[in-house]
């Protein structure tokens, strides 16, 4: 049920779905345990019922209704029936044609076996065969033409990005010359302009990052903003320099221009794969200035000796409404993840989800209480352009300053380092001893994700 609530785009969908869970709405409800599929036909207002299919393994779904909400109420209702009255589904010997069609078309979101990835890329057998057939008939000249065109496009992109970074360099110099006080005051306009130029010149990812600088600055007190501006712009300088030295580096290309596709990551033999038990620490949903919503889900590896994190990142248009990737904070599951290649691998994809794991405490990580940011600093040594870094804090507590702002402080060193917290915290949290706290450190603020306490696990995201 938790998963269904998390998947629902909004409360109204959930409410509508609950009304559709009556058996009478579903003339057909079938399942295939072998394939991990459930499907059904839901009688809507039209003459033909809507056809709904859900993959119970990775919560992939398809419905023939015209709703622009994803998942729609019919999908949610089907999942609901499966969760509450699984006996309603009749075991089917074979899958209907429309289910087969969907299976063939879909790109698996979580349970793509790695072995089948190279070449196939999640396509159906039919599509894969078609590709093979076309490969046979394609002549060598055509292949050469296509590859040449690809090389030219790549070269054009690289040239454009290089020119974009030249403009960025000049823009940064201009900001220093004009004064960071003015930059801080007008960061919205100034960042918007250079971001637009960078988009034109194919440095799209960098443009998105620059677009977010104003909101990052505005989240701080005015006296902190100049230092934050130095950090933001300085990191851009470092990132631009790194790209120029190795423009083919996957991590740098991802940060500057475009990210590789899911299939490319899965097919990349250099991508690290980790099979472990993962806990969903929390999520962060932000509407960006470019109209996209970024949905970050942070995971913690429960089998690693030192804290290892993974980030599942999803983007979708704000107009599509709220979406979720079906993970609820506190969930624990056994899964294999593949990490996007990087100096500090963090972003990942779930390759195979094997099942849920019962809750228990976090493992006892060895903490450096003298400097809770030590792990963060170590990461910046190799990737100084990093922004929000997940960290695991040693035993500590949340305290308030005279202004009522919250700070995290280590229990072992009450007069030592204290880290300011970005958001207002629940007053209850002020009375809890935190055995360990997972948070994102932005360089100036902590964004709490979750913590372990004498009262058990705390959801803080």
């Amino acid at each position: 049920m938790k998963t269904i609530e998390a998947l629902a785009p909004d409360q109204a969908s959930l409410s509508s779905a609950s009304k559709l869970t009556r058996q009478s709405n579903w003339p057909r409800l079938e399942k295939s345990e072998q394939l991990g599929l459930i499907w059904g036909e839901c009688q809507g207002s039209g003459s033909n019922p809507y056809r709904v299919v859900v993959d119970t393994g990775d919560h992939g779904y398809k419905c023939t209704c015209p709703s622009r909400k994803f998942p729609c109420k019919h999908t949610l209702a089907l999942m609901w029936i499966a969760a509450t009255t699984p006996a309603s589904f009749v075991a089917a010997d074979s899958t209907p044609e429309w289910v087969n069609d969907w299976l063939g078309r879909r790109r698996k979101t979580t349970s793509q076996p790695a072995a089948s990835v190279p070449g196939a890329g999640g396509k159906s057998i039919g599509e894969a065969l078609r590709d093979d057939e076309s490969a046979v008939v394609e002549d060598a000249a055509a292949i050469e033409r296509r590859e040449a065109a690809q090389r030219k496009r790549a070269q054009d992109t690289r040239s454009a990005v290089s020119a974009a970074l030249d403009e960025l360099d000049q823009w940064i110099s201009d900001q220093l010359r004009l004064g960071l006080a003015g930059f801080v005051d007008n960061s919205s306009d100034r960042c918007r302009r250079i971001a637009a130029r960078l988009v034109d010149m194919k440095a799209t990812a960098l443009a998105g990052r620059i677009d977010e600088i104003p909101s990052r600055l505005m989240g701080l007190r005015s006296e902190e903003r100049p230092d934050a501006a130095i950090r933001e712009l300085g990191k851009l300088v470092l990132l631009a320099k790194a790209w120029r030295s190795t423009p083919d580096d996957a991590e740098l290309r991802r940060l500057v221009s475009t990210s590789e596709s899911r299939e490319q990551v899965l097919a990349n033999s250099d991508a690290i794969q980790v099979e472990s038990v993962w806990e969903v620490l929390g999520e962060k949903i932000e509407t960006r200035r470019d109209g996209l919503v970024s949905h970050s889900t942070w995971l913690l590896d429960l089998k690693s000796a030192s804290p290892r994190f993974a980030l599942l990142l999803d983007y979708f248009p704000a107009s599509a409404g709220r979406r979720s990737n079906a993970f609820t904070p506190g969930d624990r599951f056994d899964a294999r993840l593949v990490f996007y290649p990087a100096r500090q691998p963090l972003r990942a994809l779930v390759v195979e989800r094997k099942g849920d794991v019962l809750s228990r405490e976090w493992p006892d990580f060895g903490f450096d209480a003298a400097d809770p940011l030590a792990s963060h600093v170590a990461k910046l040594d190799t990737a100084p352009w990093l922004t929000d870094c997940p960290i695991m804090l040693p035993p500590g507590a949340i305290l308030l300053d005279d202004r009522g702002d919250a700070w995290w402080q280590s229990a072992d060193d009450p007069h030592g380092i204290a880290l300011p917290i970005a958001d207002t915290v629940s007053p209850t949290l002020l009375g809890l001893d935190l055995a360990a706290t997972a948070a994102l450190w932005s360089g100036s603020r902590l964004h709490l994700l979750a913590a372990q306490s004498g009262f058990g696990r705390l959801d803080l995201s």
Partner: protein
Amino acid sequence: MNEIEQTGLATMRDCWITGGTSFDLAPAAWKDIAAGANPDERERRLLAIAAQALEIALRPAAPKTLKRRPPLPELALPMLPERLRPILRAALKHAADARAKSRVVALVASRGFVLHPMDWMPAASDQTSPDVYAPWIDWQAGVDGEKHTDREQLTAQNWDDFYPAARRSALSDLRRTAPAVARELIETKGSSEPAEIRLTLIALMHFGLGPDDVPFLKSLSADRSGKVRELAGRLLARLGQHGQPGDGGPENPTAELAAFITEGKSGFIRRRTTYSPAKLKSPAQERRRAELFETCNLVDLAARFGVTEPDFIGAWQFGADNNVDILVARMVAASGSDASVTHMADTLVAEGGKPALFVLHLMPRLDSRRQRVLIRLILKDTQYLGALSLAEGIEAGWLDWADLTNGETLPALRAAVAGNDDAVKRGADQLLEALGFLVTAAAAEKLIGDVVAAGMAPSAPSLGLLRLNASLSGP
């Protein structure tokens, strides 16, 4: 980062804030890295170094005045198991108001668990939560210091060592077991407390109220707080002590109230006295009568008519005016003796039908057996099912499946669920919520299955409390 670099960084920073080149201000080691490039590139290199230095070498300056709150106390009961927290949160989310939420809390406490503090916390002013939450209420009230809230017996010596809610809880326990000791404590220590606290302490005297309490309660007639004097008067009235002399003048409120009541006779052979609400001429008079019912005591009113409390209640003509009947019931609940309250409850329940619903106002004064009888009565007569949600002070989780099947409640629920009348469905939702609090875990599970079979969506929010109930198998 050494001191020279820190100073250099600070001056470069100031320079960049106003605008300009900072190369000449940079530490020597940084200059070496930046040198050999054009002026713009030099500044960018220095900016990159400064950014990295700010990130890795500096830490936020912690204010010296960070304040730590005392640790949240652990409660005497175990925390609700983690796996049940989502169901609990769903039930809490659906609970519309504080009263509905307190039912969820009471149900969980009745099964031997407390809630996770991040799911629910009592307010500092909370006086209705189960006693087990007293330490959290005190913590919420922000009473700082090193006072202890041990489970030792409350005495005059350790009175100040208890936080207010913990003290109230200990005192109510003491009042149940040793009322005289508790009274002496209230008498000794209560007089130095502010009126608001004094009022809550004296309110605790309704536990084990007896004739021994009369002298102390009478002494409160000189209390400086009007609310305390009024409360003491009510408690005295429950013990049959008259607040006002029966022969007071026209300014006497009891006399004024009596003037709004018509005394009559009924019966052909055995003529007996009856009391019924007088027909009034204006809404202003009705308002005044309502005020008087709220301030006058039953014992004084009965005396005014020269009868005993049970006689007055027995002669009251219930059914003539619902609003006045409710006012009478409230007056009896507030100031009637225990015997009068039970007499009225038994009489009305025996009569059944709508008059029995007035007993709802007496609920907090009734013993558990009578409360259960009334609830079962309401469940038999489907006409007044809605009244269930009005009942106060009832125990959680005792209503059996047999109680639900012994009447028309289930068929009515099924019909409401299966039908298309939205108003009726809303009524069914409310009833399910009320039953979610009252039924046993086994009955909750059966009830869910029953209404789902009748067509209710298995995920309906109104089943939230029933689901929680069903998942809490016992204390």
